[in-house]
């Protein structure tokens, strides 16, 4: 699924990869692919993640991983970094999710009573990137679908998500709700629908696999 999500990045894009699964997308981009990766703690032009031995103590991404730079990287303060986000200069952000609704609402920062560490930069990414896609497992640890008719958790942003990459499928958020685009190799459309807590439209044609 991470490799499939990486193919969503078009040449020339400015992209922010959210904490967690999305960060791993960087490992699927080739050295000569033209893209600018942005991290909200103040760096454009992220290079591959580094091991502790090669790490620069002052060079991390927003998730705390030690990253490298590429020729042309730029460093900036947090106000400038979110000016980039809020003024619409991010072509794409890939975020994790607790829940995504059939109207593209995203919940990924708070589970009342259980998990409320603050949203960090997630709200601005979700609300202001030109395109927001989600990278997540189809269900949570106990098997409950993350794609639902409506979110039950506090929202990060409304109507922001346009596509979801899961371990089972690629699913679009359309004006009519969720629509299956692709399935993972060996997964059936029926299995995806079963693991989705909302209607899932199927294409008229054969469903590609990834």
């Amino acid at each position, binding site marked *: 699924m991470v490799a499939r999500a990486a193919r969503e990045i078009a*040449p*020339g894009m*400015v992209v922010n990869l959210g904490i967690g699964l999305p960060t791993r997308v*960087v490992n699927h*981009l*080739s*050295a*000569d*692919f*033209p*893209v*600018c*990766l*942005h991290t909200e703690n103040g*760096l*454009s*032009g*992220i*290079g591959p993640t580094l091991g502790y031995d090669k790490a620069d103590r002052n060079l991390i991404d927003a998730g705390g991983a030690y990253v490298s*730079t*590429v*020729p*042309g*990287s*730029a*460093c*900036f303060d947090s*106000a*400038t970094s*979110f*000016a*980039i*986000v*809020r*003024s*619409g*200069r991010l072509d794409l952000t890939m975020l994790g999710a607790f829940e995504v609704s059939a109207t593209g609402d995203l919940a990924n920062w708070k589970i009342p009573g259980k998990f409320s560490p603050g949203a960090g930069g997630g709200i601005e990414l979700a609300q*202001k990137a030109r395109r927001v896609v989600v990278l997540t497992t189809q269900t949570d640890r106990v098997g409950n679908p993350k794609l639902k008719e409506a979110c039950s958790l506090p929202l990060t942003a409304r109507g922001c998500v346009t596509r979801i990459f899961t371990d089972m499928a690629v699913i679009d958020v359309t004006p009519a709700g969720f629509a299956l685009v692709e399935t993972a190799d060996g997964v059936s459309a029926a299995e995806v629908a079963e693991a989705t807590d909302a209607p899932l439209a199927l294409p008229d044609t054969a469903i590609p696999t990834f």
Partner: protein
Amino acid sequence: MRLPNKTRAIEEAIAGIKDGDTVMVGGFGVPGTPMTLIHALVDHGAQNLTLVKNDANEPGMGIDHLLQSGQVARLITTHLGLNSNAIAQMNSGALEVEFNAQGILAERIRAGGAGLGAVLSDIGIDTELAQGKQVVEMDGKSWLVEPALRADAALIHADRADPFGNLAYVATAQNFNPLMAMAATCVIAEVETLLPLGGLEADAIHTPGIFVDHVVELGQLSEEYAVVRR
């Protein structure tokens, strides 16, 4: 991953500007004024423009060329004292002028570049500059609403750049350039020296290339960039 290349021929960089556009122009006096891009905009010929610029340069220099060619309908600025042509056009009604306090103009542009709606300020609140402005009460005090400014295009002058559009300025040629480079849909930078990717130190970049759309390398600088002997 490698960073995309944004170097362009000047005509290509400027081609997207349309009649009626709002265009921000960097510079405070000569330093930082994109003299070459201004001439290209005169040649391009877009009409009925709204310009945003700290000052109107001096007669025969900088944006005075756009005023003289009749391409400017409106000017959002802070001070016209050194350009008698601009003052004459304003007094005759040919040019609509909106004056801002200088730092408030800077903040309004920055707010546009930062995706904010406005800043609240008390500058000029008890003077005639407050006339016509929306007032907000907060914690028992009155504040003026100073709306964010954005533009269709920004014309920027930088000292050094790389092909991704990372920019560095020198001395007092910085002024409004880094702010305007955040606040326009299409940001065009003319640069004195184009370095390869990696030629600018990451910590010494004033404008991250993410904000910049087109990079135009200048050749020999014209006399307009030189020291002004009054």
